[in-house]
Each structure stands twice: as structure tokens, then as C-alpha cells.
């Protein structure tokens, strides 16, 4: 089986999708001749032409707004926003239109589109390039939010997102683009949206994470084995809709939970996960659900990035606290 990193598996998925559906368009800044700032669309314009892989003016509201019109006419826009921190100028098009047009038109027009964006810290980028505000999008009714944590999932989830009849925000952890290579089948496969992944089994505690935090949590779990602690790990993958059942099932087994994310703590997705768990597994909880997160501060520049970004030590410490509650 071929071996790929995440950027390659995403490119692979985009290529498959372009080949499979003549109405699929890729729109974004520098996605064409340049192949995207992270090379996710490299070679695709050459293969499919500038009417399918389209360099857009530097205007995010235009990218999303025009995609809406294209979708009305049966095109399937896959938009690339250069960094999640630059989606804000398109926020109004997203929340006021993309997320509501199916509802507003009472089913006449679904907004089947994907908006891809790199997200999160870990590579010491400059301001706004490391934002991790996935919460906004999870809170908006009418859209789905997906965050892969490995090359295999990235391809399967992206193909599922592209196939979805509704708008999907597809967030790609910048730190993982070239982090890891793994076997990724050349053929078409989908990973259903809304299904979490049990990454590791364990009975002492459930660790919940997504995207760039999954490898960190995995490493912490490995190290904790030395202390005879067996952690179960769930990669949520799909932040909306999210797989409440798998989580609740795990919590019913372990009774203890930590949620890990890079986003600011207050109203990060961890808040929803914690609120849901205590609603649905209250009697099984043996300790409070603890959140290991970025702090409630502006996303820092590179030098202090590591202080804000949850790391193995913070996670291990939190695990000990929850276990010894």
C-alpha cells in the first residue's frame, strides 16, 4: 500500500474527487499554478485546468460567497481558506448564508460544499496562522465540522465531506501535514462523518482529543503505561455532529475523563464534551472531567507557543489529578 503524509493524502482525495465529478471545483487563493501554500492542490490545475482549480482574488468573502452561487447551480465547491485565521472575513457568508440556505429555502437548495483550512499551532507560525477557533463553527447550526488527525483519516473524511449534501468545514492541523507517513490506500474510501475513533483501549481513564492533539495524547498514554496507567483514547474526528455514544460508552467503563484541545479553554469544544458527558453518564463519573487546553489568551507568537499548546507533561499531570481525585 502506498505511504503518505497528510498533505499527500488530502491531495490524493482532491484529485480523486476532481476526477469523479466534473462539477467539483476547487476555489482558493494560490490553489492553482502555485498548488496552495501547503501544496495540497499541487498539480491539480495542470491536470484539470483553471476552470476547475481556480485562483481567486484575495478576498475570503468572495470565495465563500461565489461558492454559494456556484452551489445553487449544482457545482460542488471545495474552498481552500489559506489559514483558519483568515476565514473571518468570510464569516458572515458562512453563518448568514452557507449554514442557513437549506433551511431558508426549505430544502430547495442544499449548500453542499467543503471549506478546507489549516488550523492550529505547533509550527511557530506568525500571528493568526495558528488560530484554533473550531468552536465557532461547531456552534453554528447547519454546518458540520471535521478535523482529521492522521493521513488515513484525512483522505477518508475528506471524501466523505465532499460527498456530504451539507456544508462541511474541514480543518487540517498544520502541525500534522508532514508529521507522519502511514499507509493510505490508493482507492476511494470514506470515513463516515459523526463517528469518533477509538484509538487506544484502556480502563483507567478516557482521553478525548482531535486533530493536532491526538499524537500528543497518544504519547502521554504511552508514557503513562510506565506508571501502570491504561488510558483509553478517543479521537473525536468529527466535531459536529459528534459521536456521543462512543464517548459515553467509554466513560461508563473508565469513569474518568480528560479532554485536550489547543483552543482557548472558555467555550472550547471541551466545554461541550464535558457538559454532554455529565448529562449522559453522570452516575458513572468518579472524578470531574478535566480540560487540558490552550489558555484564554490571544494565540501567541512562536516563542511562547509551547506554553499555550498542551503537551505531554500537562496531560500526564492532569491524568494523575483525575486519577487521584
Amino acid at each position, binding site marked *: 500500500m502506498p505511504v503518505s503524509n497528510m498533505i499527500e493524502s488530502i491531495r490524493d482525495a482532491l484529485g480523486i474527487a476532481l476526477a469523479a465529478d466534473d462539477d467539483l471545483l476547487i476555489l482558493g487563493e494560490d490553489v492553482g499554478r502555485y498548488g496552495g501554500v501547503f501544496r495540497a492542490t499541487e498539480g491539480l490545475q495542470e491536470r484539470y485546468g483553471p*476552470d476547475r482549480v481556480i485562483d*481567486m*482574488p484575495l*478576498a475570503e*468573502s*468572495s470565495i*465563500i*460567497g*461565489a*461558492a*454559494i*452561487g*456556484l*452551489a*445553487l*447551480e*449544482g*457545482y460542488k465547491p471545495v474552498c481552500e481558506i489559506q489559514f483558519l485565521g483568515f476565514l473571518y*472575513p468570510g464569516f*458572515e*457568508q458562512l453563518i*448568514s*448564508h452557507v449554514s442557513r*440556505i*437549506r*433551511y*431558508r*429555502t*426549505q*430544502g*430547495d*437548495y*442544499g449548500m453542499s460544499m467543503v471549506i478546507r483550512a489549516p488550523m492550529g499551532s505547533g509550527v511557530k507560525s506568525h500571528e493568526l496562522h495558528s488560530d484554533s477557533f473550531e468552536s465557532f463553527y461547531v456552534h453554528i*447550526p*447547519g454546518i458540520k465540522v471535521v478535523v482529521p488527525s492522521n493521513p488515513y483519516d484525512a483522505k477518508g473524511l475528506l471524501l466523505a465531506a465532499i460527498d456530504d*449534501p*451539507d456544508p462541511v468545514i474541514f480543518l487540517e492541523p498544520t502541525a500534522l501535514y508532514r508529521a507522519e507517513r502511514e499507509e493510505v490506500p490508493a482507492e476511494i474510501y470514506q470515513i463516515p462523518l*459523526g463517528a469518533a475513533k477509538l484509538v487506544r483501549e484502556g480502563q483507567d481513564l478516557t482521553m478525548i482529543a482531535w486533530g493536532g492533539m491526538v499524537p500528543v495524547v497518544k504519547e502521554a498514554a504511552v508514557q503513562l503505561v510506565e506508571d501502570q496507567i491504561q488510558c483509553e483514547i478517543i479521537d473525536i474526528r468529527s466535531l*459536529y*455532529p*459528534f459521536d*456521543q*455514544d462512543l464517548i459515553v460508552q467509554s466513560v461508563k467503563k473508565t469513569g474518568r475523563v480528560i479532554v485536550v484541545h489547543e483552543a482557548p479553554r472558555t467555550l472550547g469544544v471541551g466545554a461541550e464534551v464535558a457538559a454532554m458527558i455529565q448529562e449522559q453518564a453522570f452516575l458513572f463519573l468518579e472524578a470531574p472531567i478535566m480540560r487540558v487546553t490552550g489558555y484564554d489568551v490571544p494565540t501567541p507568537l512562536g516563542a511562547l507557543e509551547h506554553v499555550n499548546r498542551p503537551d505531554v507533561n500537562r496531560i500526564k499531570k492532569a491524568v494523575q489529578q483525575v486519577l487521584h481525585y
Partner: protein
Amino acid sequence: MKQCVTPTGKLTAYGEQIWSKLSIDIKKELWKWMVRLRAYDQQCMVWSRQGKILTYAPYFGQEASQVGSAFALQPQDWLFPTYRDHGAAIVHGLPMKHSLFYWLGRIEGNRSGGKWRALPASVPIATHLLHAVGTAWAATLRNRPTVSLALFGDGATSEGDFHEACNLAGLKQLPVLFFCQNNRYAISTPFGEQSATETVVEKAHAYGFPGIRIDGNDVLVVYETVKHAAHKARLGNGPVLIEALTYRLGPHTMSDLPQRYRMMEEEREWNAREPLQRYQQLLLDQGVLNEQEVQETKRSCQQQVLESMNQVLHAASPPNTHLFAHVFAVLPRDLKKQRNEVVGRRGMDACFEYD
């Protein structure tokens, strides 16, 4: 400012030309639509004041702009209206009944079933201009002779999305018509406090396509201008910005008090230039119409409005679970649970999907 019919109902030199080219049918239809829209709008204002519908945004005084522009479209063309452009939407196919549902706060009114090509009213100012650019782009990509008509107000020109839409349309030379009803005010803000330029039309220079300034209270010039622009756009000549000078004779919405920001004198002046009277006068003078027809048409239009309302009031209300219909193509599990809360709470049939 291009004009065919003067405020007193006389043809200008340019108007004579246009007049001679048009069929009687079209001349009459334009008039009928204005009568129909006027009846609807006036009645809605009354109903809104009486609390029979929710707050309402009247287009009173702008009928020529809305009829002339929408009537120039072909069925395959796209219309992107604002909250004030239900007049144009009705001309393009939206049944009055649907519009009334909307003003009653019932989302079912937004459904078109694709029978006319328009999005429901866009409430966030200027955002829909980009949607029109998108459908126009699709027409170009698919090589179809479809144009997109975006309606917006003078205030909309200040928003960033206006600029982005014009830039993209100009860059790709797309078949989109930007039709600005410059009714002089954005709620209370006069255009002179809105915009760095005195006119809307001169903004077109910045986007590499032509701008045309017309009398927006003159249905003939509106119709002719939009039809011609649409024709050229279909042939690949790219976008046009049309500034239609008009005036909102009514309030911004029924909760607005225009006397707070404009003079009675000004309203009176514009009343004298209003679109229906002058065109009707022309048709009467030219013998295309007679008084009896006028009276009969008015009566039947009024009747149509009342009937539409009757239908709406007798239509079944959707169940509470309708809140969850069409949020997604397939309801996610958690939303199903939430939907069931509503079912339980109101004792409604969980399987019923309103249509």
C-alpha cells in the same frame, strides 16, 4: 439620467424610440404588474399596522424599478432580492401567497421548488451580490445564456461585499447585472452621508464595466435598460451597474418614522414623480388603456391580494417539529433527540414533515 417617460407622463425623445419598439402586450403587462404590486404593498402596510402580519418593508414608490427589472428577465435567469424586493420576486414568479407566509414569519413561504430562480430575500446587506456573481459564473462555465440580477439599495454600496462582488464580476466578465435602487436613504442615512461619491454609477469605473444611471420611477427605461444589459451580458459582454434613481415613499419598515429624517416637502415632490401614475397617464393618453380597464384591473388586483391572504390564513400550520426540517439533508442523531423533545412537549406527530 436616462428617461423614457417624464413625471407628467410624456415620452422623451429617447422614450419615443423605445415606445415604438414595444408590443402593446408588454406595455400593458408592465402597467398591470405595477398595479398588482401596488395593491399588494398597500394592503400589506395596512395588515402590518393592524398586526395581521409582522413588520413589513414596503417598496411603495419603487414599483417601476422592481417591475421593470424583473420583467426584463427570462425564466432561466436568477434573481437575488433583498427584504424590500418581494415586488420584483413576485414578478419573477414568487406567488403572493408565499410572500405573505414570509411576512407572517412562516419560513415555508421561502420555498420555490425551483419553479422560479431566486433566493429568498437576503437580509444581511450586500451579501447576496456575491451569490449572483456565483450563479453568473456558473452560467459562464456551463456556457448557458443565463444572467443573474442582484437588487440592492444605495446603502449596500458601502459594504465590503459590494466591492468584492463587483471586482470578481469585472475580473471574470460575468453575466451579472448589479441593479441599485438608489432611493436616497438607508433607513435614515441619506446617500450624501453614505458614500464618498455623489452617484452610485461612478463606482463602476473601479471595476472595469459600464455604469448606467436611469430614472428608477420610469418603468419603460428600467425595462429597456435591464433588457438591453441582459442581452449584452448573455453575449458575453460582462457585468453592468445600473443606478435607478427612485424614492421610498413609505417608511423603511412599519416600525420606522420617516419624519424623523426627511421633510414632508421632499416626500411631496417625490409623490409627484411616483411611477404608477405617470405610466398610466401615458397609456391612457396613447389610448392603450381606458379608465374602465384601470378600475377593473385595480379591483381584480385588490381581489387577488385578499384571496392570497385567505389561502394563507386557511393553510395548515406546520407542527413544532418543523423547526428541524431542512436544517440538514439528514438529521444528525443529536438533532433527532432535540426534535423529539419538541414532539414530546407538544404532543405532535413525530413523523409528520410539513410540505
